[in-house]
């Protein structure tokens, strides 16, 4: 069961939801931080991380001895990553998307591939949570290949939570693909609503079932609630605009620990999501938090 936590823009509390949800779910639970440009879950979970594996993207290498300057490689490349003007081709690895077209098209077999490092995938544990995160190298332009590398760690059993990158463009799609359910996190502000609408359009495009969590909710800012009602989108949880929540976040603390009464809300959130998914799938998964007696 794969649950994605996403939002149309950053800073709405995606990481807060992902980490606190993981904390309230029963074992086995795995959290994948796919916000590889700014992976922040580790701040709240303090996992003991291993050294990590370097993730690579294949880029072409030319054997100049075999190359006959035919220029086919330059013609097939859509990304200007390999250029050949009746000369030995020049490769610009940063532009390469790793499609392998040049290698396939080269008539003399002068092109092979080697891995270009783009980031690191680290794994570790934090209490009962199995933790995986991707960290994009600074200066790297493409995050989707690294996101896919992190997603290779999706657990076969139990629940996998994916903290997605913000926005609606290709990195988010890479993170959302194949998930069973999406939780869209937003704020009840004009910006929040605008970005939520984009996020809704994204998950609808991918045919994902989804619900909304309103963060920093106040009783009088009703615009998101009204929008959800109109669109028949379930509001799964509202986290009140509470200074204790903001302060816990600023100190890198989990809110279910800093604000105990929110623990129950998160446990209800776990149940709500799991029962939504089970509604569709048959496979039963215990729908309880880690606190005894909650069902």
């Amino acid at each position, binding site marked *: 069961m794969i649950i994605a936590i996403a939002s*149309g*823009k*950053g*800073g*709405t509390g995606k*990481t807060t939801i992902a980490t606190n949800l993981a904390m309230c779910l029963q074992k086995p639970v795995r959290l994948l931080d796919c916000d590889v*440009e*700014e992976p*922040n879950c580790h*701040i709240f979970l303090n996992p003991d991380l291993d050294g990590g594996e370097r993730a690579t993207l294949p880029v072409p290498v030319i054997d100049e001895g075999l190359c006959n300057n035919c220029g086919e490689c330059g013609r*097939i490349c*859509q*990304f200007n990553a390999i250029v050949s003007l009746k000369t030995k081709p020049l490769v610009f690895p940063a532009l390469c*998307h*790793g*499609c*392998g*077209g040049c290698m*396939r*098209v080269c008539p003399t077999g002068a092109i092979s591939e080697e891995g270009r490092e783009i980031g690191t995938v680290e794994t570790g544990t934090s209490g009962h949570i199995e933790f995986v995160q991707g960290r*994009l190298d*600074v*200066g*790297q*332009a*493409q*995050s989707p290949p690294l996101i896919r590398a992190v997603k290779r760690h999706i657990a076969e059993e139990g629940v996998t939570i994916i903290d997605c*990158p*913000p*926005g*609606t*463009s*290709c*990195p*988010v*799609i890479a993170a959302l*693909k194949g998930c069973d359910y999406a939780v869209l996190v937003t704020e009840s*502000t*004009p*910006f929040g609503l*605008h*970005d939520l609408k*984009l996020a809704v*359009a*994204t998950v609808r*495009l*991918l045919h994902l079932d989804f619900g909304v969590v309103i963060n920093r909710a106040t009783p009088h*800012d009703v615009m998101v609630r009204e929008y959800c009602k109109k669109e028949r989108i379930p509001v799964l949880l509202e986290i009140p605009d509470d200074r204790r929540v*903001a*302060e816990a*976040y*600023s*100190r*890198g603390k989990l809110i279910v620990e800093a604000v105990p009464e929110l623990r129950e809300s998160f446990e209800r959130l776990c149940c709500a999501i799991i029962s939504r998914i089970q509604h569709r799938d048959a496979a039963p998964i215990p729908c309880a938090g880690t606190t005894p007696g909650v069902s």
Partner: protein
Amino acid sequence: MKELVVISGKGGTGKTSLTASLAALAGDAVIADCDVDAADLHLLLSPKVLKVEEFRSGREAVIRPGDCIACDVCRDVCRYDAVRPVFENGRKAHYAVDAIACEGCGVCVRFCPEHAIDFPERVCGEYRIGETRFGPMVYAQLGIGAENSGKLVSTVRKEARAIADDGNARWILVDGPPGIACPVIASITGSSLALVVVEPTLSGIHDMERVLELTRHFALPTFVCINKWELNPQMTQEIEAAALAAGVSLAGRIGYDRAVTDAQIRGLTVVEHGGRAAEDIRAVWAALADAPGAPAAPATMEV
């Protein structure tokens, strides 16, 4: 002319609200919203739209079902798992490309033995040119699931620069995208000055350090300002110390003020709405306006 780009390692730090206020204070600026993935600045500046342009970038593969013999070649060569069989009456009738998954590499197009695959240009979003109460504005919206947001960022900056050149504007103010990858790189290359907006949180300090690495990489004169600093005064000091140690300047602190949200609800900038934060923002602008920044170089980065 100077080009100031407002960025933050992560979203939601108040970057857009701040940029809008700076636009109000600058008076003579061209405003560019380069946060093309979640463009919100127009909600505060309500531009009157003068021009809408489609943004095209890259291509996508489209299989003509009638010409496809279901030979599997395209599926085998596609590294993005974008080609799927379509079944009719229980047998594989032809293949089709999942537009969202297609990377536009063209490998299937080239190797299809039946030449059954078209490769049209892809519409990836749109950009708009408008007039606000503080000056001309260029903003965009990237299509959902689209790629190349770096290119759209470059396009928005190019348009803003053309307008600024024509009107002899003194400033281009850029609301930059969050993160550190392609769109951010496209928004800061060749600009004169960066303002990094940071919240005083443990994650804020991490994100700032990564984004400062990037501005250092591009040798961009950089300022840091802390938003909602009272949330954690001690962290504020730590961040400021880290910023100074990284060799960047401080542009000031902005207080935690409910007026920022109220202004947003009213569709106004914070300095128009007034309040404590408004005064802090004026001080930030004063620090930036006098800053020696490199004169803006042409935006050349194509990602």
